[in-house]
């Protein structure tokens, strides 16, 4: 075996050069320039306003739009750890939903004051409607009509984050994967977390089973709430069942496309793309009384399966009975 030989790189007299002299400290010049940029355009609508020329509504709208475009082009916006992009959500993703909310479904909200203005809470709702429009409408209800304009952070199924185009949109609009780690992290950060425990069983169920709640998963959402001590708010959504009544399910197509179901509705795929227009049912979203979990024992309670099952059942029963009473009050599907 060859002898290990140590080769000195410098003579012993060679003074050790101090590290870092060769490397300039990180300059962060870009930060201030970029930080400075957004401030100016925000002031822009007001800046060219010597009292004579008050910017008109469309002028300030235009300025806002251009400022938004510039922010997008320079990457000058903030996202959180989950990928939530409030700038994009606010300006691009939510606006097209508003006509649907106001004019098409004429959503009526009840009990919005049950949702706290600050602090975390877990919104648990029934799921229906073939495509998750109910999730979008609930998000919009809380964003536009809640006094604190809260952002709902939904927990989505695995499939959502596997699909190209859908996956980044889901993250940018504030959603994340339905797993305990993420739910607890969001709740602990005092976010409003939304979950549809029925999952695909609920959203893809046939029309004949409308408003019959499916199994509520494994109660993972309850243990997340218990661990963080945040309240659970049961939410009942009426109207979403009728937007795409599923009268058949093409299992072969579903298998080929790798989807959990391939819906056949009275209009789809019969009318092609026209069949993708949802029926204009009248919606009611009722936010129920919060179920407090803070005094139930915290993390130890979350490890008690009996308690978790009981609480899951309680939430499920509450939503189911509210659904029935809302259906009784409803005059017709469309009005």
């Amino acid at each position, binding site marked *: 075996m060859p002898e290990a030989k140590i080769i000195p790189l410098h003579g012993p007299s060679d003074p050790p050069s101090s*590290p870092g002299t060769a490397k300039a400290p990180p300059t962060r010049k870009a930060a201030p320039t970029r930080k400075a940029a957004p401030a100016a355009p925000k002031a822009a609508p007001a800046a060219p306003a*010597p009292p004579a020329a008050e910017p008109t509504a469309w002028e300030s709208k235009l300025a806002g739009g251009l400022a938004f475009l510039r922010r997008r082009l320079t990457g000058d916006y903030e996202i959180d*750890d989950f990928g939530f992009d409030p700038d994009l959500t606010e300006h691009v993703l939510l606006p097209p939903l508003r006509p649907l909310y106001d004019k098409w479904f004429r959503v009526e909200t009840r009990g919005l004051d049950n949702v706290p203005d600050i602090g975390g809470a877990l919104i648990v709702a029934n799921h229906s409607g073939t495509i998750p429009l109910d999730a979008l409408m609930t998000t919009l209800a809380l964003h536009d009509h809640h006094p604190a304009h809260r952002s709902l952070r939904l927990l989505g199924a695995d499939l959502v984050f596997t699909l190209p185009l859908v996956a980044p949109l889901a993250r940018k609009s504030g959603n994340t994967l339905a797993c305990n780690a993420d739910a607890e992290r969001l709740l602990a950060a005092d976010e409003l977390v939304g979950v549809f425990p029925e999952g695909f069983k609920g959203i893809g169920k046939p029309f004949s089973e409308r408003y019959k709640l499916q199994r509520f998963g494994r109660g993972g959402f309850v243990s997340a709430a218990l661990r963080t001590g945040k309240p659970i708010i049961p939410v009942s959504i009426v109207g979403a069942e009728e937007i795409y009544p599923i009268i058949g399910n093409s299992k072969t197509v579903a298998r080929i496309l790798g989807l959990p179901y391939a819906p056949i509705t009275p209009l789809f795929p019969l009318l092609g793309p026209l069949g993708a227009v949802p029926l204009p049912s009248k919606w009611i979203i009722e936010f129920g009384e919060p179920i407090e979990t803070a005094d139930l024992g915290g993390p130890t309670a979350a490890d008690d399966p009996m308690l978790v099952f009981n609480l899951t059942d309680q939430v499920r029963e509450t939503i189911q009975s509210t659904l029935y009473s809302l259906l009784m009050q409803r005059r017709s599907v469309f009005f």
Partner: protein
Amino acid sequence: MQPRVVLVTGVSRYLGTRLASTLAADPSIERVIGVDTVQPRRDVLDQLGRTEFVRADIRNPLIAKVITQAEVDTVVHMNVIATPLGAGGRTAMKEINVIGTMQLLAACQQAPSMRKLVVKSTTAVYGSSPRDPALFTEDAGPKSLPKSGYAKDAVEVEGYVRGFGRRRPDVTLSVLRFTNFIGPVIETPLSRYLSLPVVPTVLGFDPRIQLCHEDDGIEVLRRCVLEEHPGIFNIGGRGVLLLSQAIRRVGRPSIAIPSPAVTAVAQVFRRAGLVDFSPEQMRYLEHGRVADVSRAEREFDWVPRSTAEAMDSFVDRAPRLVSPETIAAAEQRLLGLLTRAPKEPARA
């Protein structure tokens, strides 16, 4: 415990050189020994200061002699490499990473003088998949173990390091899982990727990325050598950037490539020697990966530069095709034209 003799593997590569020179400048350390298969580049010799260099392959039992003869008490293992091109092919890379680590750990286990082992690992051990939690904590296992390349090597290296920790419980073990490095100088596959004139991305995906400033990486390694920080730590900046956002911050156009064609395109880039992205790194471009760095922040009582700040330090070095100032000026001009408002004085 104050380290007396520190051995740094992988000293001829950028981070190894920087760590060795930082340690060499610390008078409390008696000797700093650098090991690598190739000589350090001439222009960094000055930086290395009093570092002694051993030209040795850690795959060779020779390393054991170095450790026992010099009575090394602290070993910093930084010789797990990510780029097959730099190592001379995937086979050689795997040998250096896995067999090299085994040899090094075997030598360390034999050495009675050993007190501390610091391993530079990577968050790539968590893999990258659509089923990942938003943030990985140190205890979270990967949803699907990395099947190939650098990430798999890193998983295996960590496995051997764990085994070593069981056999030598008296040795302080720090495993540092770094996120992607970036900074004013360092060359990584990611920095080369972001320097391409047109940056290819995967159509329909926009991963979250997390970065670690090169200086912060050195700082953490230095503190692990000088202080006692046993355990596994994710090291990186707070916050995340979307890949699209990062590309726009460097002021480059991007081109979306449909995922069936991605592998072929990646191959072309690899052949051309532009960017050495392996298949599992392509998955990273789809799903990204973010680690929870709060444990390290508590342990070291120190907050490294955020991902956005690390990105800024990189942006400064690459000339941007379109500067944000140009875009802001264009915005003002357009606004002025459309609204016929009195023109704003030109902004600097």
